[in-house]
């Protein structure tokens, strides 16, 4: 655990991970979502960020929020690597929440990580009907156990999804309230 922190710091000092401060106040996420922040977050700035916009408070391996802002029919949650394309689960507009969670599961399992769904229930999200789920993600690379919360909804055939993940010990409890605050403030930009 201490090692992970150390490695992250090394990477930051080396300029590998670039962060930009977002908030407080109104923030637009990938043109299609917005959030109202009471305190600032850090946004991961990288051409390799992929399909999601990624935020963190204490550092990417300690807590992270992935915003998927309007995934369209046929699109994937992760950027396909060469040759991987066919195996990636793709969003279909008529998917039920269970199937969206299955898509998250398979995306997380790509690197050999383990995903376990603990609870899936209806929930308000983005000023409308949606769903909320709680999960565990055992990260393959360091075998750290992360707890996660996701919110999602499908509007006008697009998927809006927000995932929070943090190590079960300490960091989840430390930052979950701030995540829930962000999740409550999410709106869809039309």
């Amino acid at each position, binding site marked *: 655990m201490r*090692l992970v922190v150390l*490695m992250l710091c090394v990477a930051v000092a080396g300029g590998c991970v670039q962060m930009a401060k977002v908030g407080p106040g109104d923030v637009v996420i990938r043109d299609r979502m917005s959030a109202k922040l009471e305190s600032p977050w850090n946004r991961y700035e990288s051409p390799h960020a992929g399909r999601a916009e990624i935020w963190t408070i204490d550092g990417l391996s300690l807590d992270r929020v992935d915003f998927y802002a309007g995934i369209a029919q046929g699109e994937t949650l992760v950027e396909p690597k060469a*040759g*991987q*394309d*066919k*195996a*990636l*689960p793709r969003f*279909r507009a*008529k998917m*039920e*929440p*269970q*199937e969206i969670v*299955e898509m998250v*599961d*398979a995306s997380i*399992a790509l690197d*050999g990580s*383990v*995903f376990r*769904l*603990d*609870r*899936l*229930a*209806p929930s308000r999200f983005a000023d409308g009907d949606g*769903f909320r789920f709680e999960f565990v993600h*055992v990260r*393959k*690379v*360091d*075998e750290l*156990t992360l707890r996660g919360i996701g919110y999602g909804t499908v509007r006008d055939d697009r998927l809006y999804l927000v995932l929070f993940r943090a190590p079960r010990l300490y960091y989840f409890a430390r930052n979950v309230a701030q995540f829930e605050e962000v999740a409550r403030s999410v709106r869809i930009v039309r």
Partner: protein
Amino acid sequence: MRRRAVLAGCACAGFLARSNAFGQAPSTWAMPPRFAPPELASDEGGLWAVMDREENRLKRSAFLLKDQALSEYLAALVCRLAGTHCPDIRVYVMRTPWFNASMAPNGMVQIWSGLLLRLDNEAQLAAILAHELAHYISRHSLERLRDARSRAAFATLMLPFGLLGAIGQLAAMAGKFAFTREQERDADRIGIELMAGAGYDPRQAAEIWTQLLAEVKAGEDAGGDPARSSVLFATHPEPAEREADLRERASAIAGTRELALGADEYQRIVRPLRRSMLEDELRRRRSGESIHLLQRLITKSGDERGELRYFLAEVHRQRGSDNDVQRALELYDAATQSGNPPPELFRGRALLRWQQGDRVVAVADFQRYLELSPQANDADLIRSYLKGN
């Protein structure tokens, strides 16, 4: 040098006595006596120390599949095959839905759960273990260590703690100084002698490759990328060639003798773990390969096809093309007719019916699911569907 030393050290009477029973195919190989631990200051000693450290990580791994019956079964099987080396070998099963097994020079064997899911019987498991044991007994990694190019790769194994990435990957990284083709052929050859010596039908070694090649081909036919979609971890080259070679040698060794398959023994141990292994299989999202595998398992399983049909239906539902939806519905229906269908079957069928607008049927299935599984993790969501109708 090493090979000569191995051949010279044929003072292992126990194995020789057994291998004489082969009759038709005289063995050119004999079990060497147990090895002394290497000097710590030697190259081999350094490699052992690294592997011992890796083994200690592995023992605490979250991905270690802990099942006492399986562990005891594997240990007993290793001892049947490894003879005098038995006390020096430890087998670990890792929860990873791909087909792989590996042997570290210190006697640590890793088997991935995706391999166990794909085997039919004890003879096939013996074939896998015997091949890996052959690498150990022939000290192939020490041979590689003496090779200049692999020394450089070996140096990367000496990196400080933590930088090596995921636990268990170290053995895979050792693939950088992977066994040569010659060593693989040796391991195949010695492996089938070991398994036949322990009374198993060596033709099952070739059968494993036949099954895997068919599965890989099914994946490619379904549009998968041959380079990546393979269930094989690409450590063992030229599977088609090896399959043919193994089949020929195994037939010669087996002759007309009656040799064991041990299908019931194998199923008794692995069957209780099958459900979670199939759940992991679905996560690979290699639908072509998974469909082929499940169809093969259904054909070979006597009873309790309900669970297998359920998983096959799930593959089709998740892939979700028009044909898949129809096929999934048929399979869900068939699974309800067979013994012991899992509660999730009713949820899967309900989801498809719901999306087709057939809400009355869907609601009945959702209710059935909740009756069978009231504590389900998505029970609140299902109840909200029912309330809305």
